[in-house]
């Protein structure tokens, strides 16, 4: 399909026909490296200001795992976007949430989604959850040069492990370290406050409905004290993004359900701003 240096008729490049690899990232980095975030040369010198996404919380419940993210992106002290999505379905049984430089993070998520689907199609099987978490880690590692210029991406990955029949949360650091989290986890600028909230509210064996409520409440607490995290916007009807993954697969909680959770929390916080109970 491309112009061939050897002057043969136009045909698929050998890179397409070579056997062995089921990884889309490996294929692209060999064939068109400039399409990857890690394959582009970096300008040296000063860092630049770009929109940042913030808080992601995830928690286990009885039968699966929940991930929720606020909707705000900030650039310095300006709100760059009010209704950005930061939680994405990675494949049928897992979700990925992103905190950090929005542009690089969204590109990374798109690449990751194709990576998983590509493997599924070539191998005819779903990758193990551990395998999927490790693929994401290696993609973060490839992003290290960008991170050192201030374009950091720190994802959280949550999925349902079909082999052990349980939900799992994986957290990452900027160098690609991948850690299994027990119970709950939060990342991004509001994570300190969300973690405090989750510590008090989360307990093992939660029902799904209660766990969705706790995720929304933890984001509410994060937005209460962190200016870069967006709280639920009743005027514009903007609610957090909440994804549920269980043995039936991954799905997003509907807008009316989220609105009900938000209304309940807002009502409970009237005259009780800290949510003491």
């Amino acid at each position, binding site marked *: *399909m491309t112009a061939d240096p050897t002057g*043969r*008729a*136009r*045909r*698929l490049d050998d*890179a*397409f*026909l070579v*056997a062995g690899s089921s990884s*889309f990232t490996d*294929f*692209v980095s060999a*064939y*068109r490296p400039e*399409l990857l975030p890690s394959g582009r040369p970096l300008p040296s010198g000063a860092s630049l200001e770009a929109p940042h996404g913030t808080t992601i919380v995830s928690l286990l419940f009885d039968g699966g795992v929940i991930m929720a993210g606020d909707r705000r992106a900030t650039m310095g002290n300006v709100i760059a976007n009010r209704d950005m999505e930061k939680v994405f379905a990675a494949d*049928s*049984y897992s979700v990925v949430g992103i905190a950090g430089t929005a542009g690089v993070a969204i590109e990374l998520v*798109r*690449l990751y989604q*194709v990576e998983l*689907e*590509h493997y*599924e*199609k*070539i191998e*005819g*099987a*779903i990758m193990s959850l551990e395998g999927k978490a490790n693929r994401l880690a290696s993609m973060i590692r490839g992003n290290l040069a960008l991170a050192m210029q201030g374009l950091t991406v720190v994802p959280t990955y949550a999925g*349902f492990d*079909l082999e052990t*029949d349980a939900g799992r949360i994986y957290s990452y650091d900027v160098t690609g370290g991948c850690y299994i989290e027990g119970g709950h986890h939060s990342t991004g600028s509001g994570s300190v406050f969300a973690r405090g909230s989750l510590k008090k509210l989360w307990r093992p064996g939660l029902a799904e409905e209660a766990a969705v409520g706790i995720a929304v409440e933890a984001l509410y607490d994060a937005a209460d004290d962190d200016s870069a995290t967006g709280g639920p916007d009743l005027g514009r009807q903007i609610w957090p993004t909440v994804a549920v993954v269980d*043995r*039936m*697969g991954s799905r997003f909680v509907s807008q009316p359900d989220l609105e009900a959770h938000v209304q309940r929390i807002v009502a409970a916080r009237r005259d009780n701003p800290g949510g003491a109970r």
Partner: protein
Amino acid sequence: MSMPFYVPPEQVMKDRADFARKGIARGRSVIVLGYDKGIAFVAENPSRALHKVSEIYDRIAFGAVGRYNEFESLRVAGIRYADLRGYSYDRTDVTARALANTYAQTLGAVFTQESKPFEIEIVVAEVGLTPEEDQIFRLTYDGSVADEQGFVVMGGASEKAEERLGAAWRPGLSLGESLRLAVDVLAASGDNGERREIGASQLEVAVLDRERPRRTFRRIVGPLLTSLLSHVNPTSDAPSTDEGHPGHPEVLSGDSADDGTSSPSDPGPAV
């Protein structure tokens, strides 16, 4: 110094074509045919692991006959081509026509330039939003492309089978009817004209389901396939929702399609 014998180019091409055709005719047939809600692929293939039919992209699938190693490398190349295009443009910019052209160039180049032509025949099909928008491309060993209407038979005694299928196929068949027709054609086109019995276990069946969002490719296996093929009390259609048990998302087996409350120890279908 010895001079090689002069062989006219017509003879070279004819020899190569004969060689490829013989290789293709040795294998079992694959039938691709349209039905009211999509495009069905029916392959006679007792293996559960080595597929002749595969997903390429959201609305595009691939079917092949001939040498496994040769069409497998083209299948993988097609998935790479489609994923790269979808990643750098948009999912809607991946088309069967572009993929068929690319395959045709590759098959044509191998036919004229390599020491041995590919002994394969492939189909690239894309399901449209309406039956009129369905596209089925047949590609042969020498790189020629044909835009087929409604159905294709490849491999084995394909000429006889194609006649038979052409006489009985019409637009708007249900999935059950079209699968039973395809199996009937496969069974009647044996090597020596004898009818054979072909059971669900010897078949690889998959569909591109027009009504699904995003990825439309589903393999049909197990009890669902048996009941679709059954002449007594037949099922006419595949379920439009995915199954509630963990398994490969592209597989429909009919095992627990009625509810999502199967026990956690349910291992899901063997794929």
